[in-house]
């Protein structure tokens, strides 16, 4: 391959994933956290949506490992091309097979008629064959349906095969854990009413869908192509990273601000409380969209002034994405801050906190050891609930041109582009539908998972 490179957002994303992993590891060793997680894993919708989220995350991670392809090194060590991600490299057939303009899903012919020059010099006004989609077909009118079905079926069969390997691995792991034979492990997986069964069935659906799409995608454009002829399926896949980053990197700003300010306002009271309350009421009163708009305008001015710092388009797009995450964070920490303040106000009067204070424990230790662990469930619930609204917000912001860079693939940009396509005749519906499907899947899974997390961790919801 080539030399690896790390964009700012990549680095932060991996750092965040690492922190998340660390958090899960620590939580798995404490009973009071394991109990609510057990209740989450007992909920069918939560397990299914977590599996779906994991699939999205896998694609997002693949798309975050960037490198410069080795072949493009020139002699003096300069890089000729833009960096590509592992996903780009892996899905190279999708990325490189670009048509002239629109084409419908699975089509073999172009979207618009044009003048075609035949072999013997005759000209006719007809739909041209695509350059890549279904070129292997001799007579599209006769072979198309059969080929599509056969290819899809082949994908399904391969998908089932892959899934069986996965299931065998799961059964093996389960058998080792339960210290039973391999066969009994398999039986346990099927018989158990718990999470494993749902994980495996969801994985079956995902693998089948994915493999069918991949198999068809090698021969056709499964979701068609957009105005400049790029594959819509590939764009939708690339947009996953943008959506995930917006939903997660924002917490890098919200959590430190909300926890630091919220807890100190509640714990120290007095003037600190007044100042912090004033701060978040003021910030809260500014309409969020306008604050984001103003900041993005400022950022554009900044980039224009420091053009030399952003050597490549990718760097600039990356900076803009990061900045958007930070600004979204800056406008959305107030809700959590208020919750944390109220909870800390209650906690500081608890007997164990008063005892710690009476014993002369250092304030910082009290905060870290007694307050933070006891408000942590609020943080968890809030992060889970905010994720989906942030993904949705990205689309709206891109529509007002204050979202991610127009060069970045995102569902917002896809929808924005599709707005005018709906007025065309025949209607270009595939971009919008693909963006809808991928976005709906992520947001729905996130919503269902967040609901389960809230139900499990919120002590007021004991039913």
């Amino acid at each position, binding site marked *: 391959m080539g030399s690896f490179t790390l964009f700012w957002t990549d680095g932060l994303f991996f750092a965040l994933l690492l922190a998340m992993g660390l958090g899960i590891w620590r939580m798995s060793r404490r009973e009071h956290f394991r109990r609510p997680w057990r209740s989450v894993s007992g909920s069918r919708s939560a397990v299914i949506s977590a599996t779906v989220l994991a699939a999205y995350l896998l694609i997002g991670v693949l798309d975050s490992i960037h490198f410069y392809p080795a072949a493009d090194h020139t002699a003096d060590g300069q890089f000729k091309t833009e960096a590509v991600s592992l996903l780009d490299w892996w899905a190279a057939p999708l990325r490189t097979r670009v048509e002239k303009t629109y084409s419908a899903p699975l089509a073999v012919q172009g979207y618009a008629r044009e003048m075609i020059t035949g072999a013997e010099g005759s000209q006719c006004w007809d739909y041209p064959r695509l350059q890549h989609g279904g070129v292997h077909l001799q007579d599209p009118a006769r072979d198309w349906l059969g080929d599509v079905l056969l290819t899809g079926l082949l994908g399904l069969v391969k998908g089932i095969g892959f899934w069986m390997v996965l299931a065998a691995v799961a059964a093996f792991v389960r058998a080792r854990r339960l210290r039973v034979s391999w066969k009994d492990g398999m039986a346990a997986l099927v018989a158990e009413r718990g999470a494993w069964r749902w994980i495996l069935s969801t994985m079956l659906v995902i693998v089948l869908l994915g493999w069918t799409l991949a198999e068809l995608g090698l021969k056709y454009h499964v979701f068609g192509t957009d105005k400049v002829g790029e594959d819509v399926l590939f764009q939708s896949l690339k947009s996953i990273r943008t959506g995930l980053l917006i939903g997660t990197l924002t917490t890098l700003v919200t959590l430190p601000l909300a926890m630091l300010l919220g807890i100190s306002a509640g714990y120290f009271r007095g003037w600190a409380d007044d100042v912090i309350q004033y701060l978040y009421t003021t910030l809260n*009163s500014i*309409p969020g969209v306008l*604050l984001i708009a103003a900041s993005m305008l400022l950022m554009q001015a900044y980039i*224009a002034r420091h053009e030399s710092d952003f050597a490549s388009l990718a760097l600039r797009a990356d900076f803009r994405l990061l900045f958007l995450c930070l600004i979204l964070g800056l406008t959305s920490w107030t809700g959590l801050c208020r919750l944390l303040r109220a909870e800390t106000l209650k906690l500081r009067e608890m007997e164990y906190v008063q005892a710690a204070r009476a014993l002369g424990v250092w304030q910082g230790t009290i905060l870290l050891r007694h307050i933070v662990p006891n408000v942590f469930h609020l943080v968890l619930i809030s992060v889970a609930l905010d994720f989906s609204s942030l993904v949705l917000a990205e689309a709206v912001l891109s529509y007002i041109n204050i979202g991610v860079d127009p060069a970045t693939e995102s569902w917002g940009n896809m929808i924005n582009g599709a707005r005018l396509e709906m007025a065309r005749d025949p209607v270009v519906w595939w971009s919008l539908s693909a963006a809808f499907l991928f976005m*709906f899947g992520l947001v*729905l899974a996130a919503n269902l998972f967040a609901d389960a997390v809230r139900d499990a961790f919120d002590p007021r919801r004991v039913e």
Partner: protein
Amino acid sequence: MTQYLIRRILYAIPLLMGVNIITFVLFFIVNTPDDMARMNLGQKRVTPEAIEKWKHERGYDLPLLVNETAEGVTQFTETIFFQKSVGLFALRFGRSDAGEDIGADISQRMWPSLAIAVPSLIVGLAVDISIALLVVLFRRSYLEFWGLVACVALMSISSLFYIIGGQYLVGKLLQLTPISGYDTGTGAFKFLVLPVVIGVVSGVGSGVRWYRTLFLEEVEKEYVRTARSKGLGEAYVLFTHVLKNAMIPILTGVVVVLPLLFTGSLITESFFAIPGLGSYTIDAINRQDFAIVRAMVFLGSALYIFGLLLTDLSYTLVDPRVRLE
């Protein structure tokens, strides 16, 4: 009561000042008038004279905080801070960077915004509350389960899809209403139906879930059990007793958004080409007209703070148990 009111109004002043200072810092210190001029005149090949002229025409060539060339009080009044920021307190919005009177634009454009925001709010409330009550009425049944599933699914769809889908389905395929546009007087009705319906539908998911939790809290209370044990039907209990008592949180939740209805909805207005304040703001953002964005930030904040004040007052009006001191 009056004392409380005065105190709350006094409390609003530092908040507005804070907003004012934040916008001032954002728009004049982080991003200097030179940058604004360059963004408006084009980044490349712009002469310093052209920048100076642009700034002078709009009054951005004054010093930021203290004018040392002036005498006496004018040292502080002949500055950008006084001219552009302090004037906002008196609702003097000044002129946009394109030279139009912002105040006049706002007072003219707020009516279309209201025409769409008020019906959306009222119809939305009625629909959300009715469905939420029905969901509570059929609690612990399949109807509730599937109702909630539908709510989560509706919530997971971006508002953009509702608008684009609605415009395509109702406006283009069925041709029931115009796709977009606006008219004055009663002619506006046919243009308003579609945006209002779409606004209501896109809010149903989260709305129903929210009101359901409010009602569920109320349903467990003892007066409800008493009413039931007196032999009243479940539907009657819900739609009269429970609804009345849940009105307190419902009303206070609504009151806070009332003032913000003036500023309209950014997305809806621009999709349906309604000449309200929302599309005004979007146009300003796209044209990079900082004067209008600044005015709208201040107006929005002021209205939000006013909404908070109204919320506190409405507590005393709907719930006599709450006393303000």
